[in-house]
């Protein structure tokens, strides 16, 4: 009985003394305990994502990718840069899937300088194309944290609130005192997070601590992916942001045919630069304010600046605000009921089983994580008759 409060304290206290938990197995490897720690951290996030919290949903995120010589290292296959760019493609897709009304911009840093790879934009296509092309670029010199952060902090037009740095080098070559820049970033309320590929670097620790971001160092490629995906969820809003009404347009998709009397073929405002397809089209989304046409949503109208979205885009982000309730955890010994998980139909073999408090169906550990991370609704509840 004495053990239980100890166990609970460790789990809830966020591992204050992590070195106590690490135990070597017979071969002297720490791998099993490390994996266990990661898994527990994952579960903890399910519980933490609770209580209705204000989130920053219209996100403006800049990703700074280190392209210095250290990115040629082959500890990630085939080398760090290629692996990072591949994961970034996946990240960009997930990001726009979970945050349809947000934007991303990408910057690279090498040779003591920072370069813009893509502008801040709300459409994933350009970013994906640029990331694919960047695989051929050379990795040279030292990165510059100062220059890359500075070129994000300078232009004051947009509301840049988040920066994610993927930092592989152990040094940074800066033209001025980076601590002053950290003060500026704080004043602009920009949150900087870092994912380190080599080891913990003190300047990154201070940078993330002062600006309220997170800092993690990867263990391997799958851990890298997990850490990246942590940034897909919208972060809690900072205290100073006020509620404001945001104007948005919700254009209906119009389909027309040539046989219509008043068929008006038109160009989309985003297709004027390209010489090829698509050309004139009959349907599309027309901005309710200025009647400019677009073929895809969400988009910021080039002519009048109105944000055009469809209702499902907004609805898709709701699960962040109204997360699914955590299921009740019961140790396997105490559980008396069906021996099979409701969704995967596998035998319940884990230490614990999870019960949905609403429909009383039971799930295994993996399904519980999947339901909370990806599905956002309980499959058991979906089946029962709901009166709306």
């Amino acid at each position, binding site marked *: 009985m004495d053990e239980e409060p100890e166990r609970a304290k460790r789990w809830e206290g966020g591992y204050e003394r992590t070195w106590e938990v690490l135990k070597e197995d017979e071969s002297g490897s720490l791998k099993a305990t490390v994996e266990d720690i990661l898994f527990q951290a994952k579960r903890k996030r399910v519980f933490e994502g609770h209580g209705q919290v204000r989130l920053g949903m219209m996100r403006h995120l800049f990703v700074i990718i280190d392209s210095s010589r250290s990115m040629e290292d082959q500890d990630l296959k085939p080398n760090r840069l290629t692996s990072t760019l591949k994961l970034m493609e996946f990240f960009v897709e997930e990001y726009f899937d979970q945050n349809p009304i947000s934007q991303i911009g990408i910057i690279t840093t090498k040779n003591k300088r920072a370069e813009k790879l893509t502008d801040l934009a709300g459409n994933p296509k350009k970013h994906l194309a640029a990331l694919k092309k960047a695989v051929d670029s050379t990795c040279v010199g030292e990165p510059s944290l100062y220059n890359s952060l500075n070129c994000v902090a300078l*232009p004051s037009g947009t509301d840049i609130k988040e920066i994610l740095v993927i930092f592989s080098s152990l040094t940074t*070559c800066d033209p001025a005192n980076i601590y002053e820049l950290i003060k500026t970033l704080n004043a602009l309320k920009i949150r900087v997070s870092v994912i380190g590929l080599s080891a913990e670097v003190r300047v990154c620790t201070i940078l993330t601590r002062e600006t309220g971001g997170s800092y993690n160092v990867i263990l391997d490629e799958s851990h890298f992916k997990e850490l990246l995906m942590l940034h897909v969820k919208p972060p809690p809003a900072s205290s100073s942001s006020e509620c404001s009404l945001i104007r948005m347009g919700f254009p209906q998709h119009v389909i027309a045919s040539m046989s219509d009397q008043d068929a008006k073929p038109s160009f989309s405002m985003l297709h004027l630069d390209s010489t090829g397809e698509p*050309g004139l089209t009959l349907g599309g989304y027309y901005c309710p304010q200025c009647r400019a046409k677009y073929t895809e949503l969400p988009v910021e109208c080039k002519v009048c600046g109105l944000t055009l979205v469809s209702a499902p885009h907004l609805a898709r982000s709701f699960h962040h605000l109204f997360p699914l309730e955590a299921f009740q955890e019961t140790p396997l010994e105490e559980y008396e009921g069906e021996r099979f998980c409701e969704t995967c139909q596998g035998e319940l073999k884990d230490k614990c089983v999870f019960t949905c408090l609403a429909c009383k169906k039971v799930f295994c550990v993996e399904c519980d994580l999947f339901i909370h991370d990806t599905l956002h609704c309980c499959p058991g509840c979906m089946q029962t008759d709901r009166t709306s």
Partner: protein
Amino acid sequence: VHFVAVDTAMASLSEEVLLVVKRVRQRKQDGTLYLMAERLAWGPEGKDRFTVSHLYADIRCQKISPDGKAKIQLQLVLHTGESTTFHFANESTALKDRDVAKELLQQLLPKFKKKANKELEEKNRMLQEDPVLFQLYKDLVVSQVISAEEFWANRLSLNSVEHSLSNNNKQEVGISAAFLADIRPQTDGCNGLRYNLTTDIIESIFRTYPTVKQKYAENVPHNMTEKEFWTRFFQSHYFHRDRINTGLQDIFSECAKEDEKGLKSMVTQGVKNPMVDLLSLEDKTLDEGYGTATVPTTSNSSNKSLRENSNSAIIKRFNHHSAMVLAAGLRKRHQILTSLFVAFQVKLQEAIEYDDLQGDSGRKTISLNLKKSDRYSHGPIPLQSQHYSTSQDIINSISIIQHEMRSYKPRLTQVMSSSAASSAITALSPGGVLMQGGGQQTINQLVPTDVQSELKHLYTAAGELLRHFWSCFPISTPFLEEKVVKMKSNLEKFQVMKLRPFQEKIQRQYLSTNLTGHLEEMLQAAYNKFQAWQTRRMMRKT
């Protein structure tokens, strides 16, 4: 319509005044001539205002009256062709005054001329590099829909945000601590060494060792070529490890002496950190395997062994290099002077606490405060009830589907593959294959490509004008009021001068499709907005 109002009142005296010449007449009036940092101005005697003011950038050239003439004059010719003449009227010093003014102008004008040209160059470059922009320029400016100034005023404000991110040249760059190592000499096969110098490395050398920069300025290109300079540099004892002052006369021997002086002054300055005591840093020995076994020698240089001498030379060189790199980086910024006491407290705090050992305090979050959160679970409810004409079949089908959904049980072995499912969804989504109105292919065949590309240009030009129109709203200043009126007339001009001719042309080609209908819709939307604004404004005034 101007974006920047130029203020010529005396308030601009906050600019640095370089030269004041009294008793200078302009248009038969006595007054004083002022030459300032960016402009030249003249004010009549006894008055506070300038009546004449010209930016150096606007001045094309200056002319002086020939020697021997009774009137000693200086004339300024502007780019616009206008000219202003000043008559130096002080009997005793007129010639000297005029010449002093002339010399100063001779120095100042070229500096600003470059700026004016640079802008023109920049504009030309932008037009050459971007064919879309060039086409836009042709469509809007050459056909006189808007003026060139308006066009550039609008464009440049767009680019300023992009510029700071894409203009690499403007970035200041730090000095890599390993920049000398990056030079990486390679043997060239004939007993020689090749050093690879890049602009970055040269800049790092100049910034870290200002004496070398001085030597470079003094010697290149008068005394030797750049290549010779660097060859000598790498050959000099100054550069090599055994940097003991042999007294050899090469151009770099002074640099070594300068470095010594610099290092000594840094040491005497000491370190401002109260927690660091440089003098107590010594190699200590605890036991075998911990620290050096030898007894630390006294600072008497005659006791030092040869090895210790070269060791201390290397250490001195490292310390100097690091100090210079740090100093070069900080040289451009002001040192922030915090009070010594506060700094001490901060250092003390840092020394006794270690943040990593503290628990994760967890982020402070703000709770969501929604009045009716269930409104988010379903879409908007229509205000009026809809009437559907239903047949019993439709009602029956709906209830059958509802029943099926309620009693759905997953049969995971009999589902579609995910790729089949997603391609079905894509085909049925807006823009998908099954969602095209008929005739998608035929329009593009009906309308010839040259007509399509001309239409695209019209769209781009109209889009640009419309963008400026819509950016005026909400109209909060008289400046915006003026601008919106101007833009509306620009739109009308565009419709008459570009759109109508195009419409007539395609009618002549017997193209029956209404190709300009959409553009007209967009223009009409803008006109309606303008109308609504005007009406509201008039109602407010009455």
